[in-house]
């Protein structure tokens, strides 16, 4: 599903050159639930950003759903992200000025869909994460766990094949964290969604199919 070959990411300033990722090769199978762990600054988020086509590697190739991505222009990359990928972030990244239902609809705005279709799909996604009764609320009226569930609904509303989650339980207590983990596991098991999750939490990582560990930009497990 996702194939990374010899990925290297170097950040350069006038005086310093930092190797964030060093020769990472990784294959994620369709329907796999993979977690990535490692200490802060080891390159986990950079790797996830590269997988999510939000960042470009300095070297190496990425292939997602058998499509090479290095030749795609900005518009093609945006369309690809919209259709194939769903994102969940540690800090939710909800737009506080929009109601929950409007936040969930966001990815569909960049597709050829009618307002009615968008509303139906968003309502369905919210149903899946158990927030049907919070559609008209604003994000600031929700708890952290609820906000993350809204973010999950937004990630799945476009029915992507892959979800990339960057520390989705990082801002939550263990009870809420487990709730979010259950939803992600359900998506993986019931819908066959491929999930790549960056986490600091060993317990959460243990619930996934496979664990990849990074240290100083290199894969150690």
């Amino acid at each position, binding site marked *: 599903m996702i194939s990374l070959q010899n990925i290297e990411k170097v950040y350069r300033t006038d005086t310093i050159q930092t190797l964030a990722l060093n020769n990472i090769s990784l294959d994620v199978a369709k329907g796999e639930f993979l977690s990535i762990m490692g200490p802060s600054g080891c390159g986990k*988020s*950079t790797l996830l*950003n590269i997988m*999510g086509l*939000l*960042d470009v590697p300095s070297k190496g190739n990425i292939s997602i759903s058998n499509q090479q991505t290095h030749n795609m222009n*900005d*518009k093609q*990359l*945006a*369309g690809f*992200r*919209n*259709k194939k990928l769903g*994102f969940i*972030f540690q*800090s939710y*990244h909800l*737009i506080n*000025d*929009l109601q929950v239902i*409007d936040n969930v*609809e*966001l*990815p569909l*705005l*960049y*597709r050829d869909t009618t*307002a009615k279709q968008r509303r139906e799909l968003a309502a369905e996604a919210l149903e899946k994460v158990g927030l049907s009764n919070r559609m008209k609320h604003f994000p600031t009226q929700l708890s952290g766990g609820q906000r993350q569930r809204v973010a999950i609904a*937004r990630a799945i509303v*476009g029915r992507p094949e892959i979800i990339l989650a960057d520390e989705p339980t990082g801002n939550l207590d263990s009870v809420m964290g487990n709730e979010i983990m259950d939803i992600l596991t359900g998506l993986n098991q019931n819908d066959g969604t491929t999930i790549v999750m960056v986490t600091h939490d060993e317990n959460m990582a243990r619930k996934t199919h496979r664990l990849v560990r990074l240290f100083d930009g290199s894969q150690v497990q």
Partner: protein
Amino acid sequence: MIKHLFKLIWNKKKQNFLLLSEIFISFMVIFGVFSFGVYAYKNYMAPMNIKYENVWVINYSNTLKTENADSLEMFYSSLKQNIQALPGVIEASYTSANFPYSTSMMNNGITYKGKQYFGVNNYRVDDDYLKTLGGNLIEGRWYRKADGAGKERVIVINKKLKDDVFGSGSAIGKYIDGNNSKDGRRVIGVVDDMKNFGDYQPAKYGMFERIDTSYRKWVGNMLVKVKPGADAAFEGKLYKTMANALKNSNIEIEHLDDKLSSTNKFTLVPLIILSIIAAFLIINVALGLFGVLWYNINKRRGEIGLRRAIGASGNSVSGQLVAESLILATLSLLIGSFFAAQFPLLNVFDLPAMVYVIALLMAVVFIYLLVFVCALYPGRQAANIYPAVALHEE
């Protein structure tokens, strides 16, 4: 997407209030400046109908001791003939002080069929006035010597007054200020509208009354059409002729084209001052808009990063921010247009409705352009925000 943007703007109405107000105020100021500008341009484009080149004005004071009206009449007729006989003079005419581009005004009201018309400029002139100024007679005739002897009171009016009083029909032979020859004045001629107040002011209601013997002592101005190339030496000769005839009189010679320039300046200066103030305001508004949009974009980096992540291209992010600004401008313009529309409806400043309509359209286009230009660069900057970086910052 438009509905989504409306929703986003509506939900942020408190944050957007300042920007909305700023655009609204700018629109009203621009509308005001454009209204006066369009009005001035419209007036400028209208024909002057006065051939003011080589026309001089002799201002004098009547120093003759005699109170006898006939003697005065004879004296001033003879003086005019002497002036006309000078080799450099083409035509000459006595006039009241409200000759073209002077600062004097004489207003009367007239009645026709019980309806009153106010603000009619009353020009006291002689038989050669129209020829001296090169005016156009469009109906009837101008004054002639015999009009001084007739018992009936006659009057010449301008086209503007004729159109408003008599409509499309002929005015010749009709009476104003009465119904018959006993108490009314019969219209004998209609002249084309003359822009007596300069290039940028419209022609106003006007009626021309023949100077009769009883009015002669109040007249203190003579228009003289001179041949092209008339110089200071000729001006001196003219002065001497007048001074010799009118001992101890204060005589002053002015040129009508100079008076036109100063009248034009008098009209344009307030417009120029208003335009300069408006230009400063626009620069302020542009900087303000630019700053607010820039600030918004920096405040919304997380949102922009998110939109990029979930499928927005750089161009669509840029387009969204420009579209948001234009929607905000539209809301301000709707409110502004409502207030601007009251000007023609309530006839504020007495300008023609079309002037306001044109000014409104120009102001709308101007504000859209201003907002578009101010939003363009911040929008492009937003498009260049790297999603991974923006999402990480949040």
